[in-house]
């Protein structure tokens, strides 16, 4: 019997597990995929929003501002790449000028620190590649950028180190009440728990409906992105938004913590909650919209396109509350969910404690996580690292300078990866301009060696995504 079962290990489930792991609470996290953070958490704008967008008085407003305040501290503790770059909402018309004024006032009400309306001249001084059509901007110095999947991984890894259990490949099929708690039937077996947290992203309505009458519907929205080579990163120093509309915050251009440039997303409602394909129309839209912000982006420097799914719902706010006794929804966590995650976790703990969950400090809890990033070491540290482990002297990913030692570290991390992309998310291999063309086969080889699996069983990503389909010279030749 677990005290708490968390359904879903995206950024929200991971943040909840992390928060709970600081207390002596027996927690299990149920994740349907073969790795954590494979939903909205791995494909989004990677922004820590300042908090001027949400309507004052909403959960979104309060938790966004709080999450933005928490992010730098948590990221420092957990060794997660974070940069306080600040954001600009650019105005291009009188209408826009009014909008940024309104956002400013909203932000002040929400308690966003340091907001400023700045002049065209100041914008162009801060961002010299922005279109000269710009008329001014709302500057939010507290905004930042983060590596979203490493954020989730770090939170979940610390939770595991502190005793939480993560069950991958455990899609929830059925939930039934049993005394004070629940019995949860999953693809990998049955789990009973006194409390359940529903953090299942685009499927949060389905899970809610297993124990309660329908109260909301997820309306997933897909968005396409361009990820640009580091050679393009000089074009933006801050996260650059256009004025928001009903469709969302619009197409942004932002530096990433890895030194790339991210451009997107568009917003397309879709029926299929799982399929995150990019489309020619979506990518065209993103390019055209981005040109308004920065006219001269060189798309020859694109290294990857991807699409992500936002768990938008038919409600305007996050849906945080008990769906049934001891069953807590953390549902409809759309943007700014990544930012709000640690604040949502705080909120969840408060609600669970109010509902009778005993929170006694976990005396063995660790709060920090450290990771060796070879390329960031000083010369002396590099010498020392290789002398202690020669594998740090073998560079496998040339584009990002990731060593075999870091790949082996990833394979031995608290939530071991089972796929080439799992290593990419942990070690950073294949993130660069060759996109794993050179290092992919070597990463696959190392993963097979370290896990004892056959290379034929190594996956690229989710279950079913095998890389190789057989051996040569086994009689396959046909006339």
């Amino acid at each position, binding site marked *: 019997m677990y005290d708490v079962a968390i359904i879903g290990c995206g950024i929200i489930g991971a943040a909840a597990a992390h928060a709970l792991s600081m207390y002596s609470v027996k927690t299990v996290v149920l994740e349907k995929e073969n790795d954590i953070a494979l939903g909205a958490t791995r494909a989004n704008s990677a922004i820590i929003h300042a908090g001027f967008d949400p309507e004052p008085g909403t959960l979104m407003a309060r938790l966004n501002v709080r999450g933005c305040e928490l992010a730098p501290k948590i990221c420092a503790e957990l060794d997660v790449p974070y940069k306080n770059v600040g954001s600009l909402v650019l105005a291009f018309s009188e209408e826009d000028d009014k909008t940024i004024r309104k956002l400013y006032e909203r932000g002040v009400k929400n308690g966003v620190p340091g907001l400023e309306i700045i002049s065209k001249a100041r914008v162009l001084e801060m961002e010299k590649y922005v279109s000269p059509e710009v008329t001014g901007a709302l500057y939010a110095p507290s905004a930042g950028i983060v590596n979203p999947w490493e954020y989730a991984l770090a939170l979940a890894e610390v939770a595991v180190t502190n005793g939480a259990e993560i069950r991958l490949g455990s899609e929830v099929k059925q939930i039934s009440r049993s005394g004070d708690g629940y019995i949860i039937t999953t693809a990998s077996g049955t789990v009973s728990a006194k409390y359940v947290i529903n953090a299942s992203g685009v499927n949060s309505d389905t899970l809610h409906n297993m124990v309660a009458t329908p109260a909301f519907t997820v309306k997933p929205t897909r968005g396409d992105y361009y990820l640009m080579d580091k050679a393009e990163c000089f074009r933006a120093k801050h996260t650059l938004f256009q004025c928001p509309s009903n469709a969302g915050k619009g197409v942004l251009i932002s530096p990433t913590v890895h030194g790339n440039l991210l451009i997107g997303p568009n917003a397309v409602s879709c029926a299929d909650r799982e399929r995150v394909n990019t489309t020619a129309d979506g990518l065209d839209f993103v390019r055209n919209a981005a040109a308004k912000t920065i006219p001269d982006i060189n798309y020859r420097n694109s290294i990857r396109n991807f699409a992500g799914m936002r768990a938008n719902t038919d409600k305007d706010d996050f849906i945080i509350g008990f769906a049934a006794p001891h069953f807590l929804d953390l549902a409809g966590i759309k943007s700014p969910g990544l930012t709000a995650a640690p604040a949502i976790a705080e909120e969840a703990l408060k609600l669970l404690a109010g509902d009778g969950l005993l929170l006694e400090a976990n005396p063995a809890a660790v709060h920090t996580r450290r990771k060796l990033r070879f390329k960031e070491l000083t010369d002396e540290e590099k010498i020392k690292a290789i002398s202690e482990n020669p594998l740090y002297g073998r560079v496998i990913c040339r584009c990002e300078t990731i060593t075999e030692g870091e790949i082996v570290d990833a394979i031995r991390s608290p939530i071991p990866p089972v796929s080439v992309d799992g290593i990419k998310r942990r070690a950073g291999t294949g993130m660069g301009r060759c996109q794993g063309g050179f290092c992919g086969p070597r990463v696959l080889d190392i993963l097979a060696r370290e896990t004892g699996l056959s290379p034929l069983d190594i996956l690229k990503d989710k279950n079913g*995504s095998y890389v190789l389909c057989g051996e040569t010279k086994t009689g396959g030749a046909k006339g």
Partner: protein
Amino acid sequence: MRYELIVIGGGPAGLAAAISTHKNGLKRIAVIERDREAGGILNQCIHNGFGLHRFKEELSGPEYAGRFIDMLRDTEIELLTDTMVLSITPGKKVVCVSPAKGYNVYEADSIILAMGCRERTRGAIGIPGDRPSGVFTAGTAQRYLNLEGYMCGQRAVILGSGDIGLIMARRLTLEGAKVLACVEVMPYSGGLSRNIAQCLNDFGIPLYLSHTVTDVRAQNGRLCGVTVCAVDEKRHPIKGTEMDFECDTLLLSVGLIPENELTREAGIEIDPRTNGARVYENMETSLPGVFACGNVCHVHDLVDYVSDESERAGKAAAEYVKHGEASGAALEIKAGSGVTYTVPQHIRPGNVEKSADVFFRVNRIMQKSAIVLCSGGAELARFRREHMAPGEMEHIMLPAALLKNAQGEITVSTEEAQA
């Protein structure tokens, strides 16, 4: 540790350059190779057709590399394998790491850059759709099949008609896979005609020119099909021409990009057209004593020309170490009409003994045409060509006497005979 020459990269360019420098009198030479053996990409190019110019034989890639590795072994040149160069400094210090020797900084009197190139990826060409497994660059698939012995799929479509893609069409077919189509966005193939004949036609694999892949579909995480469309003159897909192929593999052979991260970080000038360093007649970059050759400088069609070019770079590095910097004013070599780039980008006539080699590519297929060299409004020379194609490198030799007549710059352009 101090060397007279450090060569970065032990592929065909690095090997030929190091051997040539040694022949020209240098002794303290190191070749730094990131892989566990020398030979570079030739090790996985097991097909034949290498060495026709140099050895008058049709060798396979490993055989061609093997001959140079043997030559290197007969010298005192040091080969540092499993070693990655992290950076080079403008003061010609080379920072590298290896599991065996750890972190080291070597000093060099001269450096030859020979890091080769990498393949363009799906992201660079922006193919929409799902992002499943089963989409490989042709070179990655080649490594899996030829070195590791694994099949990357059973039913394949190949996008791009570059030579590696064509070669892989044949390799996959011989290993029992079905190659459904080769799709090329341009109206002509990017590969050699002989490869179209012996890799596609021999096996009845259709080539769709002026077509591209417009959608990629996944089933359970693996590629299950692609959509191919005809394109108009601006290379935009034409609605209504969609063809669906059921396949588990998409190979991309859509171009090569010189790998110049080290070059850029060292502050060496890059030519945006070649994506390689801007070089002088002796393959010297904007940083005196640092030379570039092979595919890191510009993408070649035949390895034989890589070897020739690298030998010139090697000889020049030896000259530099023995006699110091080459001097004299430089003439700019400009790419004119029909020409996409030239290598070298500038020539110091005072440093040319007999003649200077100029390589370039044309931007379309041309029959019965002429290469025209102009300077200061006057025509300097004219070379006739029966046939030129973007997939093939063109070469002309400019005699020292001709260079003396040039003023400031020389423009290389093409003139096509009217049909």
